[in-house]
């Protein structure tokens, strides 16, 4: 690993980590102003005025969840309507036509669930009305839904049986957190050279006299919230590899920091709401260790030159450049591949399908674990499930009733936590197996053999992790109805199960009487706890997914590199 690669990682991960501290403090102020003084209540009153009578009362975990689901149902319907009617709506200078119904279903689910898996190419299929009114809108409210869910869970774990009010929380997250950050990032991107226009495509006559149609649009506004909300859905088909969606080295750095900063800040927000900053610090370190390990491996593996060029007179003194942009520098592709899958973002600045096989395994592991740092809000919720399991395992080892934040973890909570982790692996492995065994999967692959299996495995990992990136070889334009429906269902289940079950756990814990800490309690503020958590995550993840990894990227690696 070269010196400037290490410097680059330090800039992005270190920069995000530093910025996440003050941002975490702000998130707490914005989401949970009850305990803090000042202007919070003025905003709360404004949001209550906007939301109407239902926003005035506190909700328990069930009411909060029902409100969350109701809003998601309504916003799904609105998204479907805009997409289905795009050919009749304004802001369509390039006259985009009708979309296929199964694609509308898939896309609406994808953006409602904060996944942003895209079975279409933005500049080919979508009008500006769809891009802004349906997709960018969801990039705000689906991210806000995640932040709201985490705030509610944290309140529950702080021992409050009232988890707040979803309709107020959603507005807090949208208007106080995402909107100001998006304005800031969008303006910086504009100054970085990114297009922001409502004009249709430009027509150029090249120096050699060929006509070139250059798609453009309101890219900067879209890209800012795409990164900040761990959405990841690109304005253009190839996402942030397209020069308009990422014009320079510095926009790339800015976008990479925008990807990680809110997920990192969410850890601090949680710590502040439950009043356990040391505990939050331990979890932050565990997450950072997992992420940095994968970054290190990815950068290392990607230094191997393109295997396919080995027999040709091509200089092999640089790493694998297939699918990469030169302006971002050598380390940018693999670093981003890990950041975008660690955080459930899913945007890309290099084609993941063309990464070296073992490099390609790193983003997959990120999506299988899906909690370091995970999607905005939901990343920490996923981590909470692992915390419950780790605390339970530790309790079993010493033969004491396990506790978390002063409340007993019992059979009911552990069952729910197990179901939450199992559903993720079941949906990935089960459906990857189904599609690998039938023409549904095998008929649309772009690569053969082990790499083809990796493409299928990746697609379902990405859907279930609500990530949205892809081994795009499964060509967007030939994605078939079975793919649209299957990934749509996976995205939906994998969005809501891991919100519903942890909220139920938090609700159940909140209702218990606090247990006094004893000598047998595993302190959640100790290094021992951090190691226990790390081991739990690695063992659960490795045991569950290792066989599938062996059939895909690992098999491909040993087939070609001896």
């Amino acid at each position, binding site marked *: 690993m070269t010196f400037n690669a290490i410097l*680059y990682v330090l800039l992005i991960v270190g920069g995000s980590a530093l910025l996440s501290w003050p941002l975490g403090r702000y998130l707490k102020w914005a989401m949970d102003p009850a305990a803090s003084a000042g202007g919070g209540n003025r905003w709360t009153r404004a949001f209550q005025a906007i939301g109407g009578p239902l926003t005035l009362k506190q909700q328990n975990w069930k009411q909060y969840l029902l409100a969350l689901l109701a809003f998601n149902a309504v916003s799904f319907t609105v998204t479907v309507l805009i997409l289905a009617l795009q050919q009749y709506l304004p802001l369509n200078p390039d006259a985009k036509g009708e979309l296929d119904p199964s694609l509308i279903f898939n896309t609406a689910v994808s953006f409602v669930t904060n996944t942003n898996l895209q079975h279409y190419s933005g500049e080919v299929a979508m009008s500006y009305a769809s891009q802004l009114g349906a997709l960018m809108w969801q990039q705000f409210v689906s991210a806000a839904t995640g932040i709201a869910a985490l705030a509610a869970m944290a309140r529950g774990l702080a021992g409050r049986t009232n988890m707040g009010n979803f309709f107020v929380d959603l507005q807090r997250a949208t208007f106080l957190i995402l909107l100001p950050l998006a304005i800031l990032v969008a303006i910086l991107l504009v100054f970085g050279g990114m297009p922001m226009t409502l004009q249709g495509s430009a027509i150029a006559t090249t120096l050699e006299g060929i006509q070139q149609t250059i798609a453009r649009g309101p890219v900067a506004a879209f890209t800012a919230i795409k990164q900040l909300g761990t959405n990841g859905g690109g304005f253009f088909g190839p996402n942030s590899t397209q020069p308009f969606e990422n014009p320079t080295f510095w926009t790339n750095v800015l976008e990479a920091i925008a990807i990680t900063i809110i997920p990192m800040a969410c850890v601090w927000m949680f710590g502040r709401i439950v009043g356990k900053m040391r505990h939050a610090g331990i979890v932050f370190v565990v997450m950072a260790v997992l992420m940095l390990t994968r970054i290190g491996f990815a950068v290392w593996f990607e230094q191997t030159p393109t295997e396919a060029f080995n027999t040709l007179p091509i200089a092999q003194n640089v790493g694998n450049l297939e699918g990469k942009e030169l302006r971002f520098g050598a380390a940018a592709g693999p670093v981003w591949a890990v950041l975008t899958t660690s955080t459930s973002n899913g945007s890309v600045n290099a084609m993941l399908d063309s990464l070296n096989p073992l490099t390609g395994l790193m983003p997959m592991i990120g999506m299988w674990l899906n909690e370091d740092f995970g999607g905005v809000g939901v990343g920490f919720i996923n981590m909470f499930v692992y915390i419950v399991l780790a605390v339970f395992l530790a309790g079993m080892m010493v033969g004491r009733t396990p506790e978390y934040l002063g409340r007993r973890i019992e059979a009911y909570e552990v069952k729910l936590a197990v179901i939450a982790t199992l559903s993720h692996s079941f949906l990935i492995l089960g459906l990857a197996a189904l599609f690998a065994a039938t023409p549904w999967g095998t008929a649309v692959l772009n690569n053969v053999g082990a790499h083809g299996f990796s493409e299928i495995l990746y697609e379902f990992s990405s859907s279930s992790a609500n990530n949205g990136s892809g081994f795009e070889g499964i060509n967007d334009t030939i994605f078939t109805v079975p793919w649209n429906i299957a990934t749509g269902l996976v995205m939906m289940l994998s969005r809501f199960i891991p919100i519903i079950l942890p909220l139920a756990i938090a609700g159940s814990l909140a209702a218990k009487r606090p247990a006094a800490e004893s000598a047998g309690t595993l302190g959640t503020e100790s290094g021992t706890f951090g190691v226990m958590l790390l081991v739990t995550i690695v063992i659960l993840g490795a045991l569950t997914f290792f066989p599938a990894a062996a059939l895909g990227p690992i098999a491909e690696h040993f087939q070609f590199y001896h």
Partner: protein
Amino acid sequence: MQSFLASLRLVVATMLISVVAYSAVVLGIAQLLTPATANGSLIANAQGQVVGSKLIAQKFTEPRYFWPRPSAVDYNAAGAGGSNKSPTSTDLTERATGTVAAYGATAANPLPADLAAASGGGLDPHITEQSALYQVPRIAAARGIPAAGIDELVARYSFAPGGILAPDRLVNVLELNLALDQMAPAS
């Protein structure tokens, strides 16, 4: 039922503020302060015709121009994309064989790797400085001008995109070709 009404109120509020107002603010700032890049960094020639975008690669096949990196979408700026081939794929070997032949690369004079590898979006506007220098003999022969002048032009147009963080020097192919035409108008 009440939940749905509250949800609808939120839909309207978030649409108005985080879509309409947000887009308008960013659009206004972009069009007022940086209209050239906000509209796609388009480059016009002396006659005012748009010849391309600074940020978007275009196809060059004539020997008298610098050639960009390969594009999996044939430089379609209205439908970008990468090859999405595994680096172990024989399809890549096949494609690169064609590229090697086009440049006439040999084991003694191997092709720089970025000229053989397609970019992620298929629209990478840059090549490495080394790849530009690699093409100078062909261009000098096609234009019948000394190679030294073109070498000097490449050096003048090369830049390190991220300073110390990304020190490998690049050139913008379209800008370089425009400068080339300025220097020695194509006959």
